[in-house]
Protein backbone atom coordinates (compact mmCIF):
# COMPACT_ATOMS: atom_id res chain seq x y z
CA UNK A 1 0.00 0.00 0.00
CA UNK A 2 1.30 3.41 -0.88
CA UNK A 3 -0.63 6.28 0.62
CA UNK A 4 1.11 9.15 -1.16
CA UNK A 5 0.90 8.38 -4.87
CA UNK A 6 4.01 8.66 -7.01
CA UNK A 7 6.30 9.18 -4.06
CA UNK A 8 8.41 6.14 -5.04
CA UNK A 9 9.24 7.72 -8.39
CA UNK A 10 10.20 10.99 -6.74
CA UNK A 11 12.33 9.14 -4.21
CA UNK A 12 14.28 7.35 -6.94
CA UNK A 13 14.75 10.64 -8.83
CA UNK A 14 16.08 12.26 -5.66
CA UNK A 15 18.52 9.39 -5.18
CA UNK A 16 19.67 9.68 -8.81
CA UNK A 17 20.26 13.44 -8.57
CA UNK A 18 22.09 12.93 -5.30
CA UNK A 19 24.46 10.50 -7.04
CA UNK A 20 25.01 13.11 -9.76
CA UNK A 21 25.82 15.71 -7.10
CA UNK A 22 28.30 13.28 -5.51
CA UNK A 23 30.04 12.76 -8.84
CA UNK A 24 30.25 16.53 -9.47
CA UNK A 25 31.75 16.92 -6.00
CA UNK A 26 34.30 14.22 -6.84
CA UNK A 27 35.19 15.96 -10.13
CA UNK A 28 35.67 19.36 -8.49
CA UNK A 29 37.64 17.88 -5.60
CA UNK A 30 40.00 16.14 -8.01
CA UNK A 31 40.39 19.07 -10.41
CA UNK A 32 44.11 19.25 -9.58
CA UNK A 33 44.83 15.55 -8.96
CA UNK A 34 47.72 14.41 -11.15
CA UNK A 35 48.23 10.99 -9.64
CA UNK A 36 45.63 8.20 -9.33
CA UNK A 37 45.69 4.52 -8.38
CA UNK A 38 45.48 3.51 -12.04
CA UNK A 39 48.30 5.92 -12.96
CA UNK A 40 48.08 9.21 -14.82
CA UNK A 41 45.93 12.21 -13.93
CA UNK A 42 42.35 12.04 -12.69
CA UNK A 43 39.75 11.52 -15.42
CA UNK A 44 36.41 13.32 -15.19
CA UNK A 45 33.41 11.07 -14.38
CA UNK A 46 30.02 11.46 -16.09
CA UNK A 47 26.67 10.14 -14.81
CA UNK A 48 23.95 8.90 -17.14
CA UNK A 49 20.42 7.95 -16.17
CA UNK A 50 17.97 5.30 -17.37
CA UNK A 51 14.32 4.55 -16.72
CA UNK A 52 13.23 1.80 -14.40
CA UNK A 53 9.84 0.12 -14.23
CA UNK A 54 8.75 0.07 -10.61
CA UNK A 55 5.30 -1.53 -10.53
CA UNK A 56 2.18 -1.93 -12.58
CA UNK A 57 -0.51 0.53 -11.62
CA UNK A 58 -3.96 -1.03 -11.36
CA UNK A 59 -5.93 2.15 -11.94
CA UNK A 60 -3.74 3.94 -14.46
CA UNK A 61 -3.26 0.82 -16.59
CA UNK A 62 0.33 1.36 -17.65
CA UNK A 63 3.41 0.75 -15.56
CA UNK A 64 5.09 3.73 -13.93
CA UNK A 65 8.68 4.51 -14.78
CA UNK A 66 11.15 5.79 -12.25
CA UNK A 67 14.77 6.72 -12.84
CA UNK A 68 18.06 5.24 -11.73
CA UNK A 69 21.73 5.82 -12.47
CA UNK A 70 22.61 3.75 -15.55
CA UNK A 71 26.36 4.08 -15.29
CA UNK A 72 29.16 6.33 -14.17
CA UNK A 73 31.46 6.53 -17.17
CA UNK A 74 34.85 8.15 -17.60
CA UNK A 75 35.42 11.16 -19.83
CA UNK A 76 38.40 10.09 -21.97
CA UNK A 77 39.22 13.50 -23.44
CA UNK A 78 42.88 14.55 -22.95
CA UNK A 79 43.79 16.86 -20.10
CA UNK A 80 45.61 20.16 -20.38
CA UNK A 81 49.44 20.09 -20.53
CA UNK A 82 51.07 22.55 -18.14
CA UNK A 83 54.78 23.45 -18.06
CA UNK A 84 55.88 22.91 -14.46
CA UNK A 85 59.33 21.28 -14.13
CA UNK A 86 59.22 21.30 -10.30
CA UNK A 87 56.16 19.07 -10.21
CA UNK A 88 56.90 15.46 -9.13
CA UNK A 89 54.68 14.10 -11.93
CA UNK A 90 56.34 16.19 -14.65
CA UNK A 91 57.82 14.40 -17.67
CA UNK A 92 61.41 14.90 -18.84
CA UNK A 93 60.23 17.94 -20.86
CA UNK A 94 58.81 19.49 -17.66
CA UNK A 95 55.21 19.07 -18.80
CA UNK A 96 52.47 17.95 -16.38
CA UNK A 97 49.18 16.51 -17.67
CA UNK A 98 46.37 18.02 -15.59
CA UNK A 99 42.92 16.35 -15.15
CA UNK A 100 40.39 17.02 -17.92
CA UNK A 101 38.04 18.69 -15.40
CA UNK A 102 36.59 22.00 -16.54
CA UNK A 103 35.45 23.88 -13.44
CA UNK A 104 32.84 26.03 -15.20
CA UNK A 105 31.32 22.93 -16.76
CA UNK A 106 31.18 21.27 -13.35
CA UNK A 107 29.47 24.32 -11.86
CA UNK A 108 26.80 24.15 -14.58
CA UNK A 109 26.33 20.45 -13.81
CA UNK A 110 26.09 21.29 -10.11
CA UNK A 111 23.39 23.90 -10.69
CA UNK A 112 21.44 21.54 -12.98
CA UNK A 113 21.57 18.73 -10.42
CA UNK A 114 20.55 21.04 -7.61
CA UNK A 115 17.62 22.55 -9.55
CA UNK A 116 16.40 19.09 -10.63
CA UNK A 117 16.57 17.97 -7.01
CA UNK A 118 14.49 20.99 -6.02
CA UNK A 119 11.91 20.23 -8.71
CA UNK A 120 11.54 16.68 -7.42
CA UNK A 121 11.26 17.95 -3.87
CA UNK A 122 8.34 20.16 -4.84
CA UNK A 123 6.66 17.14 -6.47
CA UNK A 124 7.00 15.30 -3.16
CA UNK A 125 5.68 18.30 -1.23
CA UNK A 126 2.69 18.66 -3.54
CA UNK A 127 1.88 14.93 -3.41
CA UNK A 128 1.84 15.11 0.37
CA UNK A 129 -0.29 18.27 0.31
CA UNK A 130 -2.80 16.55 -1.99
CA UNK A 131 -3.11 13.62 0.44
CA UNK A 132 -3.54 15.98 3.41
CA UNK A 133 -6.13 18.08 1.59
CA UNK A 134 -8.03 14.90 0.69
CA UNK A 135 -8.23 13.99 4.36
CA UNK A 136 -9.79 17.39 5.02
CA UNK A 137 -12.90 16.38 3.05
CA UNK A 138 -14.41 15.01 6.25
CA UNK A 139 -13.97 18.25 8.19
Amino acid at each position, binding site marked *: *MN*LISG*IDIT*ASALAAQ*KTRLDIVAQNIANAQTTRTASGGPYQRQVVSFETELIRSQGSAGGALQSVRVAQVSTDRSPGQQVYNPQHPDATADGLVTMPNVNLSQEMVDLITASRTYEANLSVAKNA*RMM*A*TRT*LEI*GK
Partner: protein
Amino acid sequence: MSPIGSINPLFSAGAPALNKIDAPLPKLPGLHLGGTAAPTTPDGFGRMLDGLVATVDAKQSEAKGLTQRVLLGDSDQLHQSVIAMQEASVSFSLMVEVRNKLIESYQELMRMQV
Protein backbone atom coordinates in the same frame (compact mmCIF):
# COMPACT_ATOMS: atom_id res chain seq x y z
CA MET B 1 -23.39 -4.19 20.56
CA SER B 2 -22.11 -0.88 21.83
CA PRO B 3 -19.98 1.07 19.37
CA ILE B 4 -17.44 1.75 22.10
CA GLY B 5 -16.92 -2.01 22.39
CA SER B 6 -15.41 -1.95 18.92
CA ILE B 7 -12.97 0.77 19.89
CA ASN B 8 -11.44 -1.41 22.60
CA PRO B 9 -9.48 -3.56 20.12
CA LEU B 10 -8.08 -0.36 18.64
CA PHE B 11 -6.34 0.45 21.86
CA SER B 12 -5.28 -3.09 22.70
CA ALA B 13 -3.70 -3.62 19.27
CA GLY B 14 -1.17 -0.95 18.44
CA ALA B 15 -0.12 1.07 21.44
CA PRO B 16 1.49 -0.78 24.34
CA ALA B 17 1.18 2.25 26.62
CA LEU B 18 -2.57 2.38 26.09
CA ASN B 19 -2.72 -1.34 26.65
CA LYS B 20 -1.74 -0.77 30.26
CA ILE B 21 -4.45 1.83 30.71
CA ASP B 22 -6.91 -0.58 29.23
CA ALA B 23 -5.76 -3.52 31.35
CA PRO B 24 -7.61 -2.93 34.66
CA LEU B 25 -10.96 -2.60 32.90
CA PRO B 26 -11.88 -6.32 32.66
CA LYS B 27 -11.45 -6.73 36.46
CA LEU B 28 -14.45 -4.47 37.08
CA PRO B 29 -17.56 -6.67 37.09
CA GLY B 30 -19.94 -3.97 35.92
CA LEU B 31 -18.15 -3.39 32.66
CA HIS B 32 -18.86 -6.79 31.11
CA LEU B 33 -22.46 -5.93 30.32
CA GLY B 34 -22.51 -5.14 26.62
CA GLY B 35 -19.54 -7.30 25.72
CA THR B 36 -20.82 -9.14 22.67
CA ALA B 37 -17.58 -8.19 20.93
CA ALA B 38 -14.81 -9.80 22.96
CA PRO B 39 -11.54 -7.81 22.87
CA THR B 40 -9.59 -10.85 21.68
CA THR B 41 -11.71 -11.56 18.61
CA PRO B 42 -12.94 -8.26 17.21
CA ASP B 43 -15.55 -8.49 14.49
CA GLY B 44 -16.21 -6.35 11.43
CA PHE B 45 -15.36 -2.76 12.13
CA GLY B 46 -13.12 -3.62 15.06
CA ARG B 47 -10.99 -5.86 12.89
CA MET B 48 -10.74 -3.14 10.25
CA LEU B 49 -9.50 -0.65 12.85
CA ASP B 50 -7.15 -3.31 14.13
CA GLY B 51 -5.58 -3.66 10.68
CA LEU B 52 -5.45 0.11 10.29
CA VAL B 53 -3.56 0.53 13.54
CA ALA B 54 -1.17 -2.27 12.58
CA THR B 55 -0.45 -0.61 9.22
CA VAL B 56 0.16 2.80 10.79
CA ASP B 57 2.40 1.19 13.39
CA ALA B 58 4.39 -0.61 10.68
CA LYS B 59 4.84 2.63 8.75
CA GLN B 60 5.99 4.46 11.85
CA SER B 61 8.51 1.79 12.78
CA GLU B 62 9.76 1.75 9.17
CA ALA B 63 10.29 5.53 9.33
CA LYS B 64 11.99 5.13 12.68
CA GLY B 65 14.34 2.46 11.32
CA LEU B 66 15.27 4.55 8.26
CA THR B 67 15.88 7.66 10.37
CA GLN B 68 18.01 5.67 12.77
CA ARG B 69 20.11 4.31 9.88
CA VAL B 70 20.66 7.84 8.55
CA LEU B 71 21.58 9.17 11.99
CA LEU B 72 23.98 6.30 12.62
CA GLY B 73 25.66 6.90 9.28
CA ASP B 74 24.71 3.51 7.79
CA SER B 75 22.80 5.19 4.97
CA ASP B 76 22.94 8.55 3.19
CA GLN B 77 19.37 8.32 1.90
CA LEU B 78 18.11 11.31 3.87
CA HIS B 79 15.13 11.81 1.56
CA GLN B 80 13.97 8.19 2.09
CA SER B 81 13.81 8.80 5.81
CA VAL B 82 11.89 12.08 5.48
CA ILE B 83 9.49 10.58 2.91
CA ALA B 84 8.85 7.60 5.19
CA MET B 85 8.09 10.01 8.04
CA GLN B 86 5.66 11.94 5.85
CA GLU B 87 3.94 8.72 4.81
CA ALA B 88 3.63 7.66 8.43
CA SER B 89 2.21 11.09 9.25
CA VAL B 90 -0.40 10.92 6.48
CA SER B 91 -1.46 7.39 7.41
CA PHE B 92 -1.75 8.44 11.06
CA SER B 93 -3.97 11.35 10.00
CA LEU B 94 -6.11 8.90 8.03
CA MET B 95 -6.47 6.69 11.10
CA VAL B 96 -7.41 9.67 13.27
CA GLU B 97 -9.94 10.71 10.63
CA VAL B 98 -11.57 7.26 10.73
CA ARG B 99 -11.69 7.41 14.52
CA ASN B 100 -13.23 10.90 14.43
CA LYS B 101 -15.93 9.65 12.08
CA LEU B 102 -16.65 6.72 14.41
CA ILE B 103 -16.95 8.96 17.47
CA GLU B 104 -19.09 11.40 15.51
CA SER B 105 -21.55 8.71 14.46
CA TYR B 106 -21.66 7.37 18.02
CA GLN B 107 -22.49 10.82 19.37
CA GLU B 108 -25.10 11.24 16.67
CA LEU B 109 -26.76 8.03 17.83
CA MET B 110 -26.62 9.15 21.47
CA ARG B 111 -28.38 12.39 20.57
CA MET B 112 -31.24 10.50 18.88
CA GLN B 113 -34.70 11.10 20.35
CA VAL B 114 -36.49 8.03 21.67
